[in-house]
């Protein structure tokens, strides 16, 4: 696929800027940005992303885990049911213990296809982790 739509969700302007800059090295990635959890949910139908890069702790409205919970909800009437299988990569600066606790909260259905990335991350590492997830989901070969 040569047009992979990635929705990056973070309330930190500088972080969005760096991720945008890093991802723009790959011409096949088309980057969309959301500045809050609600913004992300609202943009889903407009963007139809192939991958979501989601910050965990956001102070704007709803946090990343809440967003993931809504997207991954198994309720057939969920407004986001269409996006249930979109891979989510969490971006977080929280430590391991907290990650595990949150992973528990959203249920194991999320793992292990989706990924956790700890901020800050070296540009090359970010690109390769994204590539890995895309491969796992057969979005690239």
């Amino acid at each position, binding site marked *: 696929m040569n047009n992979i739509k990635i929705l990056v969700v973070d309330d930190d302007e*500088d972080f969005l*800027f760096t991720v945008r*800059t890093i991802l723009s090295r790959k011409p096949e990635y088309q980057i969309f940005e959301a500045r809050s959890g609600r913004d992300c949910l609202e943009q889903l139908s407009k963007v139809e992303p192939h991958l979501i890069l989601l910050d965990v702790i956001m102070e704007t409205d709803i946090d990343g885990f809440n967003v993931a919970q809504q997207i991954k909800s198994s309720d057939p009437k969920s407004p986001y049911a269409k996006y249930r299988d979109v891979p989510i990569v969490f971006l977080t600066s929280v430590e391991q213990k907290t990650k595990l606790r949150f992973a528990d909260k959203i249920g194991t259905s999320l793992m292990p296809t989706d990924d956790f990335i700890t*901020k800050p991350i070296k540009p090359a590492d970010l690109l390769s982790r994204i590539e890995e997830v895309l491969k796992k989901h057969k979005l690239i070969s």
Partner: protein
Amino acid sequence: MEDTEKNFTILIVDDDPAIRHVCLSILKKQYSNIFAFENGVEALDFIEKNSVDILLIDLKMPGMSGHELIERVTQLNKEIVIIVITAYASIENAIEAMQKGASDFLAKPFTPDELRFAIKKASDKRELILQRARALQEKREMEENYLSFVSHQLKSPLSAAQQLLYLLEGENYKIDGEALDIVERAINRISEANRLVNEWLVVSRLEKSGFVGDFTDTDIVPLILQEIEKHREGIIRNKLEVITEIPQSYIMKTDQSSMSMLLSNLISNAIKYNKNGGKVIIRLRGDEKHTILEIEDTGIGIKKEYIPRLFSKFFRVRDEKTKNIEGTGLGLVIVKKIIDEHRGDIRVESEPDKGTKFIISFPRTI
């Protein structure tokens, strides 16, 4: 207060059916959750499985005595308010019971009003206990939220700044020489601050109980191998040889994430304070009573006078050899706390210029 009091669960334990009947009929008008037992064993079983607020115990019972029941209940740490029922002639018995944890006594024969008054006093006491527990819980939650909040507030700007510098360091900007050196120095200092916040958070949580999760049977050999793998970069950079003298698998009761943290800290030290081309030796063995974990390096060693201070917060050996080694002075504090949670011990053997060996012993039964 009135409402919770009505919902209190009250237990009457007496082998005399008349006393049980009298207590039940007096109290059931005011309290709906009253249960009566004719012996201590059944009562104890109920107390272990249910939430109980007030306990009326006859001291003289066949089988498990009232005194024994009080001791067993006190050991459960449920802060149940205990009233003992005793004959007039045996006040000494009541005193003994109160020393063991009962808070009041009723002398037989007692009037309905005396019983109601004793229960009222016990209810007030229980209510205070519950209020105190709620306040403590709230305080703990506030502290935890405060910690998370502060650390997030500190970490967000730090990690954003580091992320920006990573970008500059990348191949897109073609910076080299002095400029690249400046960027790298800045990255190092920011990541040092980041690490400090992380470790400070861990130490603060460790100081409260309940940081270490539930101990379950865990194979720690894969954890050791994982941690070695995670430190591969440093091992290669310092051209170190890692020698492991460990079994194929070794099950011990531990909490996986704290065990990983312990291993990570010790392995990281053995790498950082090593010499180029040195060795890191990890040994694991056990007998029926202990598990022994050793992490040894052939590095710069520690002067004798510093060893007692190694486990103090923010302590770092500062001399010519260590001045370029990054660290927060919290790693070994974390290690020690985790070992304490396992009721284990840590010993240090070290000789300057030869190396350092950390020997940890965990009891097999925790």
